């Protein structure tokens, strides 16, 4: 079985800090990591290989340094890794990103299951997975929380909706986006890390892909960011310190004023 996992390198969002004076992001010392949701996708792809056989290929689009995220994925147990990196891909919105990734997946040839995280930590759109499925003309299932079985070209899985669980079956090939309930991602072994360090990561540029070049990058992106700013924190709030009794009195009076006690 050919399994593809789509990943993205993102800044470690927990560490992103805003300079209170300039209202700008402090980049120094901010590390890049695999998008946290993609770790669940990588883990599930590897588990599918372990349960049902096959190979796992990780694919990512990003700047050259995104290679590190792919190596981290290989350290976990991914077999092959492809990086789509080209200035022509810059400024991609979700439509262009999904188009480019789907071209990369087409170039890989055969695929049975494509696994994506439910969203990225930086963009948080959750759109790229479903849009890849469209470009490949395959079905997709979002929010998958368990894969029960794959046999005779049919996957049985559960997914998590707002207020209920569903069990579904899907004919392969299929794309799924996974939620974190699906597994506990493994820590890479030392052996895995050594192997990943030496592994060959293929970089494909736009000319290596067969898609319509006008659909890549900013030219292929219907949306434009026209303004970006850091949100001014409100508020004319007050902060009080002091003895527990005293501050609790203030709190209690406030709740009384708000009419809930």
């Amino acid at each position, binding site marked *: 079985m050919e399994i593809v996992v789509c990943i993205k390198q993102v800044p470690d969002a*927990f560490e992103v800090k805003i300079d209170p004076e300039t209202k700008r992001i402090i980049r120094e010392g901010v590390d890049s990591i695999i998008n946290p949701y993609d770790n669940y996708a990588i883990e599930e792809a590897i588990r599918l290989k372990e349960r049902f056989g096959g190979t796992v290929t990780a694919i990512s689009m990003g700047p050259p340094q995104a290679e590190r995220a792919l190596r981290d994925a290989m350290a976990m147990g991914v077999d092959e890794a492809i990086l789509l990196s080209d200035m022509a891909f810059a400024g991609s919105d*979700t439509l262009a990103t999904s188009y480019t990734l789907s071209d990369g997946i087409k170039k890989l040839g055969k695929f049975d299951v494509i696994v994506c995280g439910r969203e990225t930590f930086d963009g948080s759109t959750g759109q790229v997975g479903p849009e890849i499925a469209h470009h490949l003309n395959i079905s997709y299932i979002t929010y998958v929380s368990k894969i029960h079985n794959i046999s005779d070209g049919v996957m049985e899985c559960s997914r998590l909706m707002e207020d209920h669980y569903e*069990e579904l079956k899907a*004919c392969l090939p299929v794309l799924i986006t996974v939620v974190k309930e699906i597994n506990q991602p493994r820590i890479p072994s030392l052996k895995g890390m050594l192997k990943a360090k030496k592994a060959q990561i293929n970089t494909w540029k736009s000319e290596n892909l067969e898609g319509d070049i006008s659909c890549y990058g*900013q030219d292929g992106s219907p949306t*434009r960011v026209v303004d*970006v700013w850091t949100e001014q924190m409100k508020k004319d709030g007050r902060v009080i310190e002091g003895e527990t009794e005293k501050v*609790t009195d203030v709190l209690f009076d406030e709740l009384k004023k708000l009419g809930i006690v």
Partner: protein
Amino acid sequence: MAAIKINHEKCTLCKLCIDACPFGAIEIRDEKLFINENCNLCGICVKTCPEGALSKEESVVSFADISSYKGIWFFAENRDDKLCPVAFEMLNAALQLKRDIGEDVAGILIGNNVKKFASELTARGADKVYVIEDSMLEHFQEETYASAMAQLIVKHKPNIVISAATMIGRAFIPAVAAKIRTGLTADCTDIGIDPETKLLVQTRPTFGGNLMAKIICRNHRPQMATIRPKMFEESSDVNNGQPDIIIEEFDKSSLLNNIAILKKERMQNTVVIQEAEVIVSGGRGVNDPKNFEMIRELADLLGGAVGASRAAVDSGWIPYPHQVGQTGRTVKPKIYIACGISGSIQHLAGMQTSDYIIAINKDPDAPIFRVANLGIVGDIFEVIPVLIKKIKEARKC
């Protein structure tokens, strides 16, 4: 190919653009400004440069005639044989756009036996309702819903299409946008019309909630967005006269039809924290699953629901449906009480529009205090038990 151009003669190497770039894409190489592969063409540097040394070159893209696209559509989500409250929030958002561009507002009903909801939508301000009913649409599925929606868009050419950024909206709307080959902005916190261009201006948090971005879709139609629940009030009764209901047959010709639902099971004790008027949330400072009892007791006393930060959920102290924040639920209660929550950007993104925010935290520098109406610097294990006691005593009298 679009690119940022540098006029090296004008550039004074003042480095303002380097500081301003959110992607770390500008550096100095060989004593010259250099744009590296991280560039996302966002154009912030162009605006920052005091010398006008930076410019953005856009290639001209041909596009279809967009002036024939008219109307403001919203997806009227329904579940369990009921219209969801978000349907009326989207209706209200659409009505606000109507004030600026004067185009008709139409609700989209997709499902089985959903025509009956049309009059509820027109009674609250919709000019039209498009309905696609089919037994295949009884249960939500990405492919069938996306096909139905795309079919309507292709036929009737709306200018704007919005949907709530619920799990259902976020699951199928991207496939609609891809089918139509148009832009889609996810999870907007606000939308409006630019007075000059009449384009839909879509505001959303990005970069993990650290930045706010305004996004437009200039050359493609419809302009599509999913909107975070609770950002708009529900629309009120207006009684719009005779409902104009248009029923369309579901076109199944392009369906792959590869997926079947075998079983649906309601979750036990579903927590719907989004609906609560009061939320008491616990974070890392709660320190132990047992201590959530204290949070729960306070919430019960105040007639509220229990929320949690990502840190508390990731530690396994409380299940995911309680999580408030960028990757959890967005809430907007009348009163939000944050207990032992430092207030990471990603938590703030999910609660900072609450009407009244109270924060209790040991650390006087905790970012949560910056969004709080009332901040209490104190130990939750001292303050909350005393508060609970006071409330109980007051109730006894």
